[in-house]
């Protein structure tokens, strides 16, 4: 009897296929456990909040309630807001963020690579960039609204400025930390300066640039929302500002939730893009991706 029970695990372990099967099962169970824990936390928070609000432990007027938030969002979706449909507000904010992100990333990369490549330029312009970076740039939003009015351009500019510095510093650092051997080798093989930048410097700096894009993405949304806060006719920032002015806690939370959803989906897209762009890296290759799934 004891021999038989001893034999079963021994036999199972000696077989490659069942070993792999066991490992897969263990991994799946682990993932399920993690997911379960995450759901439990969400449930505790939402249910606790709702119960506290219903029992009057917290004042739903100031703190809102999950159910109230759902009702508010449903109302917005059906009847729209004071300045047009809710979907339009989302689209406006999204448009501002995306445009700001693109402008900021492109200019950040261009300046970062230029200053990284041309030492003289870096030494001359460097201090000014540091000074501007030290300013609380959010305040620039007020200036931009004054200059460009309540429409789209002021928000795009604010988002772009926020994004620019993150991307710029990473691109600059990335260009500066390119392996000198790679550059020497390309030059000896006959590459012109432009070819060196295109085939060696830029792809090498790409690792750094991509690392900055996650932060930059968050900043582009912050820039758009804050810009709308400071003065606008449309957008989620305005929705929040209005809700705040009317002491509509559910409205503030509701809009926050939507922004969070936007940010998460953008983050997800970014992760996909990153995986594609960095497919050449060890651990990111197609083989390991297959192992991972």
């Amino acid at each position: 009897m004891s021999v038989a029970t001893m034999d079963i695990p021994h036999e199972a372990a000696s077989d490659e296929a069942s070993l792999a099967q066991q490992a897969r099962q263990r991994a799946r169970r682990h993932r399920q456990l993690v997911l379960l824990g995450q759901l439990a936390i969400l449930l505790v928070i939402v249910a606790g909040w709702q119960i506290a609000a219903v029992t009057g432990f917290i004042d739903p007027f100031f703190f809102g309630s999950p159910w109230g938030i759902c009702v508010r969002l449903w109302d917005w979706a059906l009847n729209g807001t004071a300045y047009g449909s809710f979907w339009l507000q989302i689209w406006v904010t999204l448009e501002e963020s995306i445009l700001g992100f693109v402008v900021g990333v492109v200019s950040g990369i261009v300046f970062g690579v230029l200053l990284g490549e041309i030492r003289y330029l870096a030494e001359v312009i460097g201090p000014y960039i540091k000074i501007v970076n030290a300013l609380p740039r959010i305040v620039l939003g007020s200036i931009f609204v004054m200059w460009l009015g309540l429409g789209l351009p002021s928000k795009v500019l604010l988002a772009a400025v926020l994004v620019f510095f993150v991307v710029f510093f990473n691109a600059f650092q990335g260009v500066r930390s390119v392996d000198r051997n790679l550059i020497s080798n390309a030059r000896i093989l006959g590459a012109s300066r432009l070819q060196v930048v295109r085939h060696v410097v830029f792809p090498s700096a790409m690792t750094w640039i991509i690392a900055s894009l996650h932060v930059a993405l968050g900043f582009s949304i912050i820039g758009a929302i804050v810009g709308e806060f400071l003065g606008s006719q449309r957008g989620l920032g305005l929705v929040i500002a209005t809700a705040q002015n009317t002491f509509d806690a559910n409205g503030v939370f509701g809009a926050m939730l939507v922004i969070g959803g936007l940010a998460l989906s953008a983050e997800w897209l970014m992760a996909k893009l990153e995986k594609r762009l960095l497919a050449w890296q060890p651990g990111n290759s197609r083989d390991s991706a297959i192992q991972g799934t």
Partner: protein
Amino acid sequence: MSARSEGLGGVELSNVTKRFVSPTGAAMTAIRNVDLTVEPGQFCAIVGPTGCGKSTTLTLAAGLERPTAGTVRVSGQPVDGITRNVSFMFQTDALLPWKPVLDNVALGPMFKGTPRREAHARAMDWLRTVGLSGFEHHYPHQLSGGMRKRVSLAAALINEPSVLLMDEPFSALDVQTRAIMSNELLTLWDRRRPSVMFVTHDLEEAIGLADKVVVITAGPGTVKAVFDIDLPRPRGAVQDIRFDPRFLELYRQIWAALREEVDEAYSRSATAAKAQGARA
């Protein structure tokens, strides 16, 4: 100036000194009054203790650095700017990690404006030559160290250089792989016979491969002695030639010259370490 070094692929360093000055003003003399000639088609190994400026001779020949004094000529032309028609193999891989093997090998022709398709076709030929067909779409990190060296070799030779500069190219490999790569290098070199400047700290490797071994003194380096290696070619496997009596005799002679320099360099670095320890 010897007339022979003026031919295609000849390298001549005459009375060359290279001093590096750091931004703080501290100067370091890497090599001093070096006279060195590599004739066209000659395989020249350069040995010396660590930090003696062996690699500096290569960067000067490649045109990556300018001499502080003296002249460097390649194929009879004074070097100003990147030297044309040379290839360089570094100690660490200089492969672009974000490009697949095929694109890496095709870089040379691509930089020179060869159409993509033709460059790829030539790269395929070279990959076949170094025994890596089937790996053209792998990324460098997916290959073993020896395979990466083969890719580097193909990438260096695809431009059909008249001078091949090699800076301890195989020193990161294990002993067996290294022997295989040495044989491979000799076979490939024999096809077109470019001149080779091969920096190494391994005397066996130097004698096994080269026509001529140059011993550099402890830094600042200068040429201590030049030995002609009269072992017949083709040499066959480098693992076997080590037992040849002539090989052993040459080894003994060159080692006698090299040994003092190695001892000197070692005692210097030991004193420096001690001084640093005393300061700490």
